[in-house]
């Protein structure tokens, strides 16, 4: 299905990442957003508040992030595509509702423009230190999808992808921007609406008496329904059976919680999103994402100029982690170098995936600026030795 032309700002633009992300939400069909102001993410909803009254939708500024992150889910069950936007402290407040969205299989999008932490941290400066929180921050076992754009263009493109994945898998999707990507201004090309593939919500075709809200289809994902259409359905964050009724049965718990994770497995393997360069002959592979991938690009060029066979693996879909791809590379390379704007997060996933078959070298940074390419280069040189 193609995008609704009403929301698509077709043309060549000069936009920052936050604004491009907002255009992505509109192109993807989002007609509802709830937010609470927080630097450096607020520009996304500021633009949405400006744009949406002429497109046909609603923005509501809620009283806090606890509210914003559940208001969007009410909107989804009312039939909308919906999202919220936040950063560090606000993301922490949203954790319970990420779990609720995962448990109730509510398709929605959380945009997190990452800033330095912990706590209030560095409100106006970049970090990538919420990567583990995005996956593990809510209690219990569950699955989410996280995407990491590294440019304003990708803020647009991947936001559309994020909404599509949310609908396909009935899962909350995290857009993991960082302050640099959110605030950098570059060329953004927005295609014609008929060039944009949009995944519609998969509403059930069954009549109400036969429909079960959590009955998985062949892809392990259940069909959706909308309030007001006569299905008289029930949604709960309690462990529930296929009808949506609460259950204290441990077999139901095992079956339903495993499915929340298993349904996303294709995204770790064949459908993982990443960008690879010079992997065929690589002895050292730099694994990076977001703004750090652009700094790493320079380090890889410098290494190649010195005769080191350095390659690039840029993570785009960070969760589920593309472990099978890293595992395959681990047999052919000496080492992975993992620069990130945190003190070691996704590097643990790289190490887990490499299974000891290649060295894994973190290049950590507490956040507040980007790496100096020389620091990454030094790690590559060390790894190649």
């Amino acid at each position: 299905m193609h995008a609704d032309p009403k929301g698509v700002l077709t043309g060549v633009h000069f936009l920052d990442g936050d604004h491009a992300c907002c255009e992505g939400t509109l192109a993807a069909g989002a007609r509802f957003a709830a937010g609470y102001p927080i630097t450096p993410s607020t520009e996304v909803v500021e633009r949405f508040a400006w744009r949406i009254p002429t497109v046909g939708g609603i923005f509501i500024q809620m009283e806090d992030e606890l509210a914003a992150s559940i208001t969007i889910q009410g909107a989804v069950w009312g039939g909308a595509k919906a999202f919220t936007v936040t950063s560090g402290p606000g993301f922490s407040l949203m954790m319970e509702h990420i779990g609720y969205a995962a448990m109730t299989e509510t398709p929605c999008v959380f945009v997190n423009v990452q800033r330095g932490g912990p706590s209030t941290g560095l409100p106006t400066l970049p970090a990538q230190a919420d990567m583990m929180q995005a996956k593990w921050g809510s209690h219990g076992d569950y699955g989410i999808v996280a995407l990491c754009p590294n440019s304003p263009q990708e803020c647009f493109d991947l936001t559309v992808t994020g909404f599509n994945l949310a609908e396909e898998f009935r899962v909350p999707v995290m857009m993991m921007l960082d302050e640099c990507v959110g605030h950098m201004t570059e060329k953004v090309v927005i295609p014609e609406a008929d060039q944009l593939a949009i995944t519609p919500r998969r509403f059930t075709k069954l009549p109400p008496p036969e429909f079960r809200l959590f009955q998985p289809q062949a892809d392990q994902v259940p069909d959706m329904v909308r309030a007001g259409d006569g299905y008289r359905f029930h949604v709960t964050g309690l462990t529930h059976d296929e009808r949506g009724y609460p259950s204290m049965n441990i077999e139901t718990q095992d079956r339903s919680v495993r499915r929340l994770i298993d349904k996303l497995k294709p995204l770790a393997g064949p459908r993982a999103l990443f960008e690879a360069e010079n992997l065929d002959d690589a002895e050292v592979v730099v694994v990076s994402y977001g703004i750090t991938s652009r700094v790493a690009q320079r380090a890889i060029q410098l290494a190649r100029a010195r005769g080191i066979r350095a390659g690039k693996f840029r993570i785009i879909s960070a969760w589920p982690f593309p472990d099978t791809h890293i595992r395959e590379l681990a047999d052919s390379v000496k080492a992975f170098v993992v620069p990130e704007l945190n003190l070691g997060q996704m590097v643990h996933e790289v190490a887990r995936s490499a299974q000891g078959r290649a060295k894994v070298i973190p290049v950590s940074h507490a956040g507040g600026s980007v790496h100096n390419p020389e620091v990454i280069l030094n790690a590559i040189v060390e790894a190649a030795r």
Partner: protein
Amino acid sequence: MNASALEIPCEIPADARNPVEPFLRMDRMPHIWCPACGIGTTVNCFTRALEESKANLDKVAVVSGIGCTGRVAGYANLDSFHTTHGRAIPFATGLKLSNPELQVVVYSGDGDLFAIGGNHFIHAARRNMDLKVICVNNLTYAMTGGQTGPATPGQTISATSPYGVFEPSFNLVQLAEAAGAAYVARWTTFHVKQLARSMGEILKKKGFCFIEVLSPCPTLYQRRNKMGDGLDAMKFYKQVSKIRNGASTADAALTKAGEILVGKFVDRDRPDYFDLLQAQMHATLGDRYAEPEVSCSEC
């Protein structure tokens, strides 16, 4: 028990059905509420109100938070949402705004709506969001074992106030009025006719409507405070309640054993959130304003 009471002739036809059954998920019975708990009584009143309102039940949704009253959503044979603790109102806000033809009823308890969810309550009332909020006030956190809540009266004993509650409590109806609610009433589970009538009124009234229902928790609150069983609670409500429609909510604070003012206290017309939104956009954007089309079957 008086043996003669058992001799009343009574024949129940085999096909007899309780008139509330169509409104409930009978496949989920029996419910989890304790004997003499008042929540079921409020649900009974709610089903009467739905029946009398002749509302299209496919267009009525119930949103609950967490707690004993939070379980109402699960038993209502409607589109129903059992959300997170304290967040029924913001969930309901999104549901209502995305699908305005729905009548959205928030059904939850005093701890859920006024402690963990208190901020959402006052802001939804301020916005005059078109939500119908029914608060079953049993004066305690019952699901977790009877702890002190924001509505627990002073000088009572609770699981977390073994030496007596000394914090002042909220006057829920005064709070609702001050925050901007269009309709504010209070009843007890003794006042089933009046409660059902009030519930019927809010189903027809636009804007943020609030009904507080005092409801017994014999298992925890009453037992700890030596207030007897469910029947004693009815006698107590009958004895100390005074119906004062239009009374000032400032005079309606509750104490452990003092008077309970009940009645409809506030019934006023304010433009609701959606009206204000549309008026503002029409005024500033004119023809460029596009009416919200948030919910779609093909999006």
